[in-house]
């Protein structure tokens, strides 16, 4: 799966979790830049990504997620590890 495919699917998850399909997300977007992306919804987004991509994150990895781009890179890494 390419990074842009991952990004598109991740965008859908984030929009659903924060309840706003109008948000403009790109790789540089951070949680601070998205209204409603707080610690509670962060877990919802992580869980959504785990279900969507059939992967499982390590707890220690989650702190390193500073932007949507980091999230995409981590999902890509987990998908590669699954193979």
């Amino acid at each position, binding site marked *: 799966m390419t990074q842009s495919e991952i990004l598109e699917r991740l965008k859908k998850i984030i929009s*659903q*979790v*924060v*309840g*706003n399909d109008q948000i403009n997300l790109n790789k540089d977007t*951070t949680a*601070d830049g998205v*209204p*409603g992306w*707080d*610690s*509670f*919804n962060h*877990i*919802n987004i*992580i*869980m*959504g990504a*785990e*279900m969507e991509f059939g992967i499982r*994150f*390590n*707890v*220690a*990895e*989650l*702190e*390193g997620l500073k932007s949507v781009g980091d999230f995409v890179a981590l999902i890509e890494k987990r998908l590669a590890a699954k193979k």
Partner: protein
Amino acid sequence: MLFNSITFLVLFLPLSLLFYYLLGCFHMNAAKLWLVVVSFLFYGWWNPQFLILLMTSILFNYGCGYLIQVFEERTRVSSILLAIGIVVNLWALFFYKYLLTLMNWLHDLGLIHAHSWGSVVLPLGISFFTFTQIGFLIDAQSGNAKERGFLEYVLFVTFFPHLIAGPILHHREIMPQFVKKETYLIYWENVIVGISIFILGLGKKVLIADQIAPIADDIFRHTADKHMVEAWVGVFAYSFQLYFDFAGYSEMALGLARMFNVKFPANFDSPFKSQSIIDFWNRWHISLTRYFTLYLYNPLSLWIMRQRTASGLPMLRAGETTWKYFLIVLALPTSYTMILMGVWHGAGFQFFIFGLLNAFYLCINHAWRLFGPKVSKVSGSRLRSWFEGAWGWGLTYLSISIALIFFRAKSTTDAFLLIRSMFGGGTGDSPGGAQGVVESILDYFGVAVPYWNYSNALITLAFLFAFILCLPNVLQLFEKEETSLTKVRSAPAFFSFQWRPNILWGCFLAILALADLLMVTGTSEFLYFKF
């Protein structure tokens, strides 16, 4: 040794810096070793016998982490090693911090009958260096701590700017800085920026926090017999004392690290500007919030979510959340995390209540966001948005001030007595209620009221409010110098300006440094040192 002592300022810091950069010219390992030696000296200055504890803790955790890294591929072995590491660390913390209180409590309940079991002195910074190293072990097990250098590891734990009271660092954000050669070469701009931040932090400690401490101390000494207004002044004064004490410490730590070419994560970002409790905990002791979120809240929250998913229950989207879902998925992990965060600060029952209160506040804040009325930010008028902001700010500050009573009081009883005094139930001879308020106002206008002598305190507190709300914080002042590893959250201040390496700032900081030095007593500990 204290950052605000003459020995530190005149001898320790200049000599540490001088030999660090001199040795750095020859070999970076020599500079590293020097920094380790001075950091141990810094720690041992207070009580040399605890150096053995610190060294044992470092050796144990390095060994444990090393084995975890070696057995990275064998998950079962590394998980067992991690469990052993965490249990040993928590046992040490429990022994020094909680055992005696527990024994006294069991004795009071009549469950044990021994009369004396000696006393235990709390080693300085034990909560900080223990948590830093538990974080390292968890990171090592999940493959997020790769570097294995022993000298760098010792430096990561002992580096004196963070050893006693944080910020709580992640191995992965500091170790890459310690292995870089450039860290040990002198960059004058870093030294100047570091000194400037340090002077501002020292000013907050000695010129503000230490000056308002007597007001809070006086009122918290006897909480039962307080006049209503006196009690409120005491609560506000303590909130500001703690604020400026911890802001001062965090800035000094940031500045000291910068003098040695090291960047720390932000730890304090104008928390009293917060307009919600959620926002407050993202700005107050940021590295502690980050730690508890990462290693306690996230694992429990994820575990609950995964269990639900495995049972075939759906993950609810925004707008679909039910109260049951909210209680299980959010309120439970929040309460567990915040109560442990409270107890992390100390063994008394008042710290449990401090954590519980904050959990309660956070749950209300989250519940309001999820179930409260949805108002579009775009459609609201500017005036309405200003009032909402002011209401959120006032409510947040007041809630935190009430919680801080439990943080400061000697016991839960003392804390409740002060709260009773705040609502006019004090037992002293001074009148409470509306009469007390009127008399304190009369006093302000020169009408003598014998028991009331806090008019100056009120003016000071009003001035400090304005100081916090209108001026930029250190992270904003030095934003261009990329002071911290993490980004600033605060909106630009009312009076927005930046530090510049020019004569005006030089003169201001020189005068401030002189004032700092004149006010340094060398005896006033930082409030967070006791944790």
